[in-house]
């Protein structure tokens, strides 16, 4: 049979996060033998991916992997693609609320773990006490909201965190300028602030820049989700000690293995199915066809950050 062809459509072009995800795809395809291509829209606005999906459908590719810009605006084009026999995979973010419009969702970690894990990472650095705040992306960002809910849950239910007090959740809209102002406002409003969690790459970078600029790193502990390349200078100069993420590379790698397997019939796309991905070990398809690339978040700190380049 022909080689399986995979097209990956990230949120937008020029976003460094997706570069390493693409690298994973490329390496995966080199190993399992598939054709890979990446097509990105210029902006991450709700409709910008639609023409790309249609064009790839027209090209008759085997697999469309997409990091959706909107959880519901893509339903119809994706259905059209699937009706042509194309395997549609949501990668890195899911079609929350519209899961039946894709064949499977490949997410980096079990998102229920993100929140507690971030709280623990911060708590361990501030002796589990003091005022803390969250600097998120947009008010309606679905992933971040899931995580924030879980953070609140942990803080409330786990006695270990009894002395940590969440004083504010701010939203930087994933915009550097806005995130900067919001972070500055947090520091201004809460003079006793001990720690900040920013579970978004733009936010955590902006927050680190603010701490560095204001020389407040000693007073306020920052953690969050960031990419090593973006955070490297701040780890090196001690602005923050540790942050977390997962491996976008592995998402690409796993997706290519899974896609080819499903296409060739060697993997049955059913919850409970297990399959092997070299380097990632045994992977299980979870409920709602959600597949996680790793069990726990990766924590980056001065000790390991130089092993990563993305």
């Amino acid at each position: 049979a022909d080689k399986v062809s995979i097209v990956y459509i990230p949120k937008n072009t020029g976003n460094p996060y997706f570069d390493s995800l693409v690298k994973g795809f490329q390496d995966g395809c080199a190993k399992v033998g598939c054709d890979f291509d990446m097509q990105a829209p210029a902006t991450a606005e709700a409709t910008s991916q639609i023409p790309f999906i249609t064009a790839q459908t027209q090209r008759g590719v085997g697999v469309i992997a997409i990091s959706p810009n909107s959880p519901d605006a893509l339903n119809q084009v994706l259905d059209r693609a699937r009706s042509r026999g194309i395997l549609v995979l949501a990668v890195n973010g899911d079609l929350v609320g519209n899961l039946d419009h894709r064949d499977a969702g490949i997410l980096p970690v079990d998102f229920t773990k993100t929140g507690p894990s971030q709280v623990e990472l911060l708590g361990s650095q501030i002796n589990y006490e003091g005022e803390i705040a969250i600097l998120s992306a947009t008010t309606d960002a679905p992933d971040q909201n899931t995580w924030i809910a879980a953070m609140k849950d942990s803080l409330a239910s786990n006695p270990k965190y009894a002395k940590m007090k969440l004083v504010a959740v701010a939203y930087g809209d994933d915009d550097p300028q806005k995130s900067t102002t919001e972070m500055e406002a947090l520091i201004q409003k809460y003079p006793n602030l001990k720690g900040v969690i920013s579970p978004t790459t733009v936010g955590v970078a902006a927050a680190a820049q603010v701490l560095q600029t204001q020389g407040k790193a000693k007073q306020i502990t920052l953690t969050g989700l960031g990419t090593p390349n973006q955070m490297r200078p701040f780890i090196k100069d001690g602005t923050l000690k540790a942050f977390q993420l997962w491996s976008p590379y592995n998402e690409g790698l796993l997706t290519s293995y899974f896609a080819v397997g499903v296409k060739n019939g060697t993997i049955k796309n059913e919850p409970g199915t297990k399959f092997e991905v070299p380097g990632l070990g045994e992977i299980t398809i979870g409920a709602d066809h959600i597949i996680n690339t790793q069990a726990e978040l990766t924590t980056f700190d001065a000790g390991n950050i130089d092993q990563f380049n993305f």
Partner: protein
Amino acid sequence: MSHTPATAVSPQDAAKPLPLWRVVLVRPEMMTLVLLAAAFVIACLLSPFFASLTFILESATYYAEFSIIALVLTLVIIAGEIDLSPASTMALTACLFGTVFQAGLPIGWAIAASLAAGLVMGAFNGVMVLWLRLPSLMVTIGTLIMYRGLAQVLAGDKSIGKFPAWFVGIDYRTLLGVPVPVLVFVIASLALAFVLGATILGRQIYQIGTSEIAARHAGIKVRRIKFALFLAMGLTSALCGLLAASRLASVRYDLATGGELQMVLIVMLGGTYIFGGRGTIAGTFIASWLLVIIATGMTVANIPVTYQLTVMGLLLIVSIIATNAIYARNQR
């Protein structure tokens, strides 16, 4: 009147009109048509997947909303004004539609609210431009920002969806194999071509754009016509906002972001003169297809979007310069 002997004819009386072939062929729309043919051929060469009518028509639905607005914008620009706010108007009216619907009111009410809001927004532009006599360019840059901001205030950044099944997916309904939005575009083109080309209203739009002062002196109700055009822009934008809501089955404040540039691009590409007085619906119609062909052709040929942006920007500048040059040449 009685006959008087012929008197000396001044040299200017002998001026000959331009040869017919120049009048017919050296026109901006012709340039667009040639570009369209060239783009089509190139697109076919670039990708074997391109030359499929269903695919082109389906792709056309993504541009149909902007194209429909560009038709009305053509009239506005011919009349010597400009409106940069329609994309934001689309977003605001669509978000209003979503909010009203979400509030539990019947969907008919939501549609009515969005159309009414479109009229109000068009009227606001019109009042600022025609009664406060502010330049339409700056006014609509202001409302471009404000309407988009209000959409954000209204809907936050979450998408509003879960519309009833009959409302969504208008782009998948076809008539004679043509998706409804494209059909709407074609019908609107025919209707507006008729209005602009064959009715007295269209004639007066050209006259206003050619010389607003002369038009006023000829007893043409300039303000009334321009106000009607701004209203039409608002209403059409609201309508296209609804088309987009149906196509996407959801609305969000960032709907149609940057669409104003594309609409102006279409109108300019179609050979409408930025200073008013000239232009045709046919030109805008052809330019819409040109844009569809270029964008679709490049996308299906897997040409990175970076090239696409560059090509669009260049096309806009080159088309204004060319249009300007052709008009300057044909005019003495």
